[in-house]
């Protein structure tokens, strides 16, 4: 028996990761890793409220975990994810802009959200913030009294400078918006979505976003208010 019709191509002409969905999957997986990181990061930073010994001890734990290798593994993984996330976001954004060379005179949003419409510029704010944050608290720039390993004191110094606190708080709102959309969107991108639990998923994403904004913003506020000194 002969087959009358040839099935569609078994092999793509471009690699899967280069397709729009492939790059979205890269964005979703790396976004999930980054989301896991910011959650753990926030929980770890709660040691600020337990005093200098607790926070510096937590930092020492991170620096000595797996004989100091743990921190570097985490850094490599996170940096790789950040690069892939920004690459996929940037290349897909350019594709989408190119897809509508002539815009509308009038366009009204209906089901999209403020969060979903600000993913790109919010991402740019996050990108700038991440660079500043590493320069500031990991490498000790913008702080004359910075002492490596003296994490508690460094955090308090940094947040006593109000412009640092303000930028931090603005960035955390950008993060909250980014995750309000991103955390449910990533499941959709990976193919997990069902009308029955979609609403639940969106609410969970919002819950995590609020938790992160409140938790992270509490640090500069506590320092500025003098509760943590």
């Amino acid at each position: 028996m002969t087959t009358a019709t040839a099935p569609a191509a078994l092999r793509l002409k471009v690699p899967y990761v280069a397709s729009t969905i492939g790059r979205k999957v890269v964005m979703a997986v790396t976004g999930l890793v980054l989301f896991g990181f910011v959650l753990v990061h926030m929980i770890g930073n709660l040691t600020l409220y337990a005093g200098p010994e607790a926070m510096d001890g937590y930092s020492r734990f991170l620096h000595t975990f797996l004989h100091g290798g743990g921190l570097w593994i985490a850094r490599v993984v996170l940096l790789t994810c950040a690069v892939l996330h920004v690459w996929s976001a940037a290349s897909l954004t350019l594709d989408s802009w190119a897809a509508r060379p002539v815009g509308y005179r009038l366009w009204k949003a209906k089901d999209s959200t403020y969060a979903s419409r600000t993913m790109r510029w919010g991402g740019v704010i996050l990108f700038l913030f991440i660079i500043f944050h590493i320069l500031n608290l990991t490498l000790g720039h913008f702080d004359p009294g910075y002492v490596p390993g003296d994490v508690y004191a460094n955090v308090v110094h940094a947040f006593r400078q109000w412009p640092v606190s303000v930028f931090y708080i603005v960035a955390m709102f950008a993060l909250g918006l980014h995750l309000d959309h991103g955390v449910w969107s990533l499941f959709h991108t990976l193919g997990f979505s069902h009308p029955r639990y979609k609403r639940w998923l969106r609410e969970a994403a919002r819950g995590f976003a609020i938790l992160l904004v409140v938790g992270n913003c509490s640090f500069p506020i506590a320092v500025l208010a003098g509760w943590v000194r």
Partner: protein
Amino acid sequence: MNLTLHVWRQKGPRERGRFVTYRATDVSADMSFLEMLDVVNEGLLLKGEEPIAFDHDCREGICGACGMVINGRPHGPKARTTTCQLHLRSFRDGQELWLEPWRSRAFPVVKDLIVDRGAFDRVIQAGGYISAAIGSAPDANAVPIRKENADLAMDAAACIGCGACVAACPNGSAMLFTAAKISHLGLLAQGQPERYERAAAMVETMDAEGFGSCTNHNECEAACPKGISVAFIARLNADFVRARLTEGRRLEQVGEGGV
């Protein structure tokens, strides 16, 4: 009632377009939107002017030929309604309306409000079919299909291919259309043999046609005259990922060259 229309006029694909203002006077609130345009066009013809070109065929919301962006919404302000099924009672007397064609690189303007949706046909050609032996119609219940899947397949098959999803999407993405087309076949037994090749080939063609990339805004579902759910997009994503994961196995079965 009276309406002021700012209509996108463009003589041809390579011409520059612009908005021209017309007045629809003494039209009935019970007229359909396209009937109103017919009346305006009759007036233009009497004055010896070129009538406004717009696409339409069935005028009963089933063919998918009609469609324009009316005041920033594809097919106008009413949910689950094609332009041909929209009536003037959805507007206020004296209202100003901006009429624009679907804006997408993949849908070049043919004339005025008409765009070329051939890109959709090419996405269908890439995999929107099943290969089955022809013959007399099979017995209706010969192939058992879960009721849920039959219903979902029907929901997906309600897509009339009008392109409102692309027009509404801030990214100009055709994911809802492609997702509906792969889902209505992929949910049925007859669609299984080519399920993953279909997802791969249709997405590849969709990308090649120059559509943008979905960011899950859900504007497509809101604009779809058939209310097709974005859940089908998640299904397409899943099938596409599975096409990647099972590629080696399928190649082994069929050989590098395919059949």
